[in-house]
């Protein structure tokens, strides 16, 4: 599975960090979210799907 974030859409709401803290992070001064692990294992799928659902601007995509 591959994770991408549309940085034009991202407004650093941080809901993805709450849903999947092993995959996403936000620094205090970041304009867009950081992807900590862009190709995570299947064990993270549930948390990432939740992050996708929670994102207020629908910026996160899962491929595969």
């Amino acid at each position, binding site marked *: 599975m591959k994770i991408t974030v549309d940085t034009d859409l991202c*407004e650093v709401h*941080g*809901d993805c960090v*709450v849903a999947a803290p092993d995959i996403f992070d*936000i620094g*205090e001064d970041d304009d867009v979210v950081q992807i900590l692990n862009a190709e995570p294992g299947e064990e993270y799928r549930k948390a990432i799907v939740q992050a996708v*659902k929670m994102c*207020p601007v629908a910026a996160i995509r899962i491929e595969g």
Partner: protein
Amino acid sequence: MQDVVAVGGGLAGFRFAQGLREAGYDGRVTIVSDEKHLPYDRPPLSKQLLAGTYTEEQCALPGDAPDVTWVMGRRAERLDRERRVVVLDDGAEVAYDGLLIATGRRARTWNGPMPASGVHTLRDLEDTAAFRSAIDADAKVVIVGAGFIGCEVAATLRKEGVSVTVVDVAAYPMPVMGSEVGARAAAIHEAQGVRFRLGRGVAGFEGEERVTGVRLEDGELLEATVVLVAVGSVPNSEWFEDAGLSMDRSVVVCDATCTVIDASGQPVPEIVAAGDIAAWPHHHGDGAAVCIEHWSNARDMADLAAVNLLLPISDRSPMAATASVPTFWSDQYDVKIKSAGFLRAADSWTIVAEDPEKPSLLVEGHRNGELVGAIAFNMNRSIIGYQRQLAAPAPS
């Protein structure tokens, strides 16, 4: 269940329909909406749409709601629970065996005489277009109400150099966040050229055909070519007021599973509710039902209501701990304001960090010494920590 009806075509109704399909429901889904547009996102209205950086199309909510029967431009007039039908404003009846109440709220309007034109509210796409078209470079805009909408609109217009004066009876803007945050927010707006008239009420509007000014209760006259009344919202609850449901301040009361409670205190298995037309028991609200008017609350309630409606009462799950932490955001100038927790519960505020140059700010709200919420300006990482901390069960 074969006939699920959502009344309300906003974020909650749309996500609810998506949630039903994701949960495997293959019966009919009908969304009744009094809007002319398919569901759209409201947060950009006072910011990107007003500024012209988003088109109306870009405000559409993302994703599909597969196989929905849309009943657009129609208002629900009455809920007949015995016959399980929703009666619409054209007399048509929509039958349901599962129902979502998600009619949300509308802008509170000025309760008094008004000029024929020039006084606006801002809640939907049409409002935003009408307000926008009334503003030119020489406009003198008076905003009545220094809440979030009033402050966001002020910020959007000041970026274009439009003259803006904001009036409120409160002593500082966005009073739900407390006086410390309010004072700093006022300073940020003033540095950008917003004029405030705080702690002062509006007596009325001047002008007949078109607004020419706003008269304050102390006699001051503010010249105005356009006025925005941004004094909160009222629930769209008239259609179910006589349906024998439990109500609190004109919103429907549900339990923590989003199942609606009837007037005798019993759950109504076939009716769920979501968004800012509903109140549910929150652990920071002393267990009382509270109505949380945030985007994220509509999202979380709608997602849960869809799953729960398909289950027997005994199998329904309550709101997840993280989702139960109210959160909101507001963008004003280059300041990202974020909040976590139930701010209305706070009885004291503590400044934890501050950098007026950046600007950044972190404030905690406590009740009886217990943390109930936090507010951050441009501290996007810190606020996430509070979201997590507040999601944990309160120490007993």
